[in-house]
């Protein structure tokens, strides 16, 4: 049955019927869900997020043609592995932004430009997206980031330097910042 299903996924891709391909991959923080469309990476699910819910959301918002097809995500998986090993500081993956729009999309595009190992504040992100007073909305945009890690919302902190929230949980945000050398042994909390 495995061979038959592999053949099916391959044929679906060839005949352009594979609208959303997904797979799971391991990370130091737990399993990640990766989903890609012909336009690019559309969703990264963090370990604490419900996999089935993410897939249902993709079916409703992108296309119901959602198939498990690990081969389509080989490059994304390779880059993430290197990133977690501290050997990659900038992702070279096309992103499909279709799950975000308006102010949120502008905030995410700002975040995508924060370099490895640096941090910015929510206020700076709000200003960059064109509305300095919309700090809370900028925070929401971070929380709803469909492609965390690759769009590094973990690099956005509160103005006072406190870490703030993270979709994958505060310990993961702390761990990522430590990996990038932003945090020393003791977190600023």
């Amino acid at each position, binding site marked *: 049955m495995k061979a038959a299903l592999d053949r099916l996924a391959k044929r679906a891709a060839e005949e352009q019927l594979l609208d959303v391909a997904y797979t799971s991959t391991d990370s130091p923080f737990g399993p990640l869900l990766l989903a890609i469309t012909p336009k690019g990476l559309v969703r990264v699910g963090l370990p604490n997020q419900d996999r089935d819910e993410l897939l249902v959301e993709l079916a409703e918002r992108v296309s*119901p043609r959602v198939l498990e097809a690990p081969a389509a995500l080989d490059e994304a998986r390779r880059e993430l592995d290197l990133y977690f090993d501290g050997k990659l500081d900038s992702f070279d993956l096309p992103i499909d932004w279709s799950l975000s729009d308006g102010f949120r999309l502008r905030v995410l595009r700002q975040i995508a430009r924060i370099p490895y190992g640096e941090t910015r504040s929510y206020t700076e992100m709000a200003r960059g997206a064109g509305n300095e007073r919309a700090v809370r909305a900028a925070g929401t945009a971070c929380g709803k980031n469909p492609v965390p890690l690759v769009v590094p919302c973990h690099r956005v902190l509160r103005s006072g330097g406190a870490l703030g929230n993270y979709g994958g949980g505060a310990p993961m945000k702390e761990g990522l910042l430590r990996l990038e050398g932003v945090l020393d042994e003791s977190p600023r909390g």
Partner: protein
Amino acid sequence: MWRISRSTHGQRLIHVVSALPPFQVLIDEHAGDVMAVLRGAVGREGADDCFQETFMAALRAYPSLEDARNLRGWLITIAHRKAIDYHRARGRRPVPVAEVAEVAVEGPEPSDDGIWLAVGALPPKQRAAVTLRYAADLPHREIADALGCSPEAARRSLHEGIKRLRKELA
């Protein structure tokens, strides 16, 4: 799930929306049944190709599917049509000798294949009814839908098929 919209006259329109699950869910839950149906309907040799055809056809049509309440029945119906296509194509084509030889060198078949061989030898309607009932566990009404006949006719085909199988296998 419900969705409410407004008509051009401002009336509220309430639609029942049953969202389509990710296609992978259909594969995870029903691929085994579809394969079982196809093995019964066309035999082990043809089942793999029919399986591909079935799921490719389903994937193509899926986004425009309006009623998501019986996805299993929908898949089984497609599988049944693909099995008919398979038999038609073979009916027109002479079976090459090489194909017979290939069957002979294959490894031992699972024990219940004797039954499916007997099922494969039934007349088309009876074979379809028996497969849909026992491999796919479809109720009479859905067998009738798949075969394009009345539930009574489906019940009759099934009954005749089972009677014949009992005689063959006794």
